[in-house]
């Protein structure tokens, strides 16, 4: 009798990852993540060790351009939807813990250094809202400085910074915005005007010192030293296009999830088939890598030996791998149609790539550059792993 029940328990334990991940069984969250199914308003909870989907969670609203941040215990994903929904997903219980509609039109968010505050960046109305990470209670509502049309600017590139701060870029106001949220009910903001025309996204370097905002309206990049914000915004890579005619941009590049590899930053060139390589010691251009299309995501493998790049329409079926030692493309992959995102496992032995129009996620071994697994997903877009919980600027 006893033996039988032990055996039954073992059978259940072996019955598959889906059972395993349930709240009843103890497990950590370090190898979990989510895959966004953008059209269906769902996320899959995935396991990067088993390379398997554990659960599908419904009811997250409009997830076009959705992104996610994680609680620092790696248990909860905060998913920001286009429709202004902010959904707290419990990866262990595999259900929605809480959900609020916090704006008319949103684009992403960040979580504070101490993990207590979730910040959402909004297009309509343009601004940032701060929420209690535990309860999603609204703590403060910040209107962005106005753009030329008098309306609050759209906010992009929101990232956390050391010292309980957040940094963002203001697309319509041509400005950067520093938010000191040490007291999240009474945050203090500083706007840096004339940062450059139409900043489209921004990132914080892995060491938390620099905020880098890409500019759409001119060739160049805006740089803010978070150790010395009083020194103001500096412009780098000025006129990197050297006045050449830009190609039409069918999709905005992203800087989040970006690449700093061995002291060099790899940045997408706007409207060009190039990745710019910048020396982070003096922020001068060090090289350019010609690539197969307009880069969207440019992401370093965690050990910094490779940088992986995907591309805007109409080259979105390709992914290229840059070797950071020679700064050349060493492989062109075709994971599927409409590659929207890629995410490395915490230490980078594998990378997960979403191919929206082929409804699949393909996992590549980053040493052999060969596909090792494929998961079905409905129009997958963003892939986010819990390792982000421990990284600044994610």
């Amino acid at each position, binding site marked *: 009798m006893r033996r039988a029940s032990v055996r039954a328990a073992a059978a259940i334990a072996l019955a598959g990852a889906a059972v395993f991940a349930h709240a009843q069984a103890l497990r950590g969250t370090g190898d979990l993540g989510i895959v966004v199914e*953008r*059209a269906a308003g769902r996320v899959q909870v995935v396991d990067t060790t088993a390379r398997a989907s554990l659960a599908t969670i419904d009811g997250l609203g*409009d*997830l*076009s*351009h959705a992104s996610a941040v994680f609680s620092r215990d790696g248990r909860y994903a905060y998913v920001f939807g*286009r*429709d202004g929904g902010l959904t707290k997903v419990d990866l262990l219980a595999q259900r929605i813990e809480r959900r609020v509609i916090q704006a008319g*039109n949103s*684009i992403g968010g960040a979580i504070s250094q101490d993990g207590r505050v979730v910040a959402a960046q909004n*297009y*309509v109305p343009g601004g940032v809202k701060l929420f209690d990470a535990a309860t999603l209670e609204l703590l403060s509502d910040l209107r962005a400085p106005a753009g030329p049309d008098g309306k609050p600017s*759209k906010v992009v590139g929101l990232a956390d910074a050391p010292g309980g701060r957040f940094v963002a870029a203001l*697309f319509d106001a041509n400005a950067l915005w520093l938010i000191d949220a040490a007291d999240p009910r009474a945050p203090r903001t500083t706007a840096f005007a004339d940062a450059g025309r*139409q900043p*489209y996204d921004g990132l914080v370097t892995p060491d938390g010192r620099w905020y880098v905002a890409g500019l*759409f*309206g001119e060739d160049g990049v805006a740089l803010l030293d978070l150790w010395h914000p009083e020194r103001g915004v500096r412009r780098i890579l000025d006129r990197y296009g050297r006045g050449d005619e830009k190609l*039409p*941009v*069918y*999709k*905005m590049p992203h800087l989040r999830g970006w690449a700093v590899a061995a002291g060099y930053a790899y940045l997408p060139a706007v409207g060009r088939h190039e990745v710019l390589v910048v020396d982070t010691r003096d922020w001068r251009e060090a090289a350019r890598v010609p690539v197969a299309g307009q880069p969207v995501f440019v992401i370093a493998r965690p050990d910094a030996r490779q940088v992986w790049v995907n591309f805007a*329409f*109409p080259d979105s079926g390709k992914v290229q791998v840059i070797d950071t030692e020679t700064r050349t493309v060493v492989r062109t992959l075709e994971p599927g149609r*409409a590659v929207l995102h890629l995410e490395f496992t915490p230490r980078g032995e594998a990378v997960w790539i979403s191919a*929206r*129009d082929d409804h699949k996620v393909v996992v590549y071994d980053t040493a052999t550059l060969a596909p090792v697994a494929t998961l079905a997903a409905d129009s997958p877009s963003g892939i986010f792993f819990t390792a982000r919980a421990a990284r600044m600027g994610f």
Partner: protein
Amino acid sequence: MRPVAALALAVLAAAAPAGAADGAPAPARAREILALLRQDCGACHGIRLTGGLGPALTPGALRAKPSEGLVATIVSGRAGTPMPPWRDFLSESEARWLVARLLAGDADAPR
């Protein structure tokens, strides 16, 4: 299943307002254009066309705007803004058909 969907689309296209009917693309091409609208235009205008970096493309948002101007915006883009020209991927008559569909609130992409 496929032919039925195609037929339904053809019927919808035929029922679209005057102006849309002339130069209406063949059903397969119509499907492609509507998928482009949701996915690639959707990257900036939202998958539900309710706006993002670009403005909403819902009937309510577009109604007051002259449709020729909207067609020109799609074909040639708007300099100084992120709206790119789509002429390499959409002909002018396709853009006109698409604008009619947008104005009619009848631009659901088949999934």
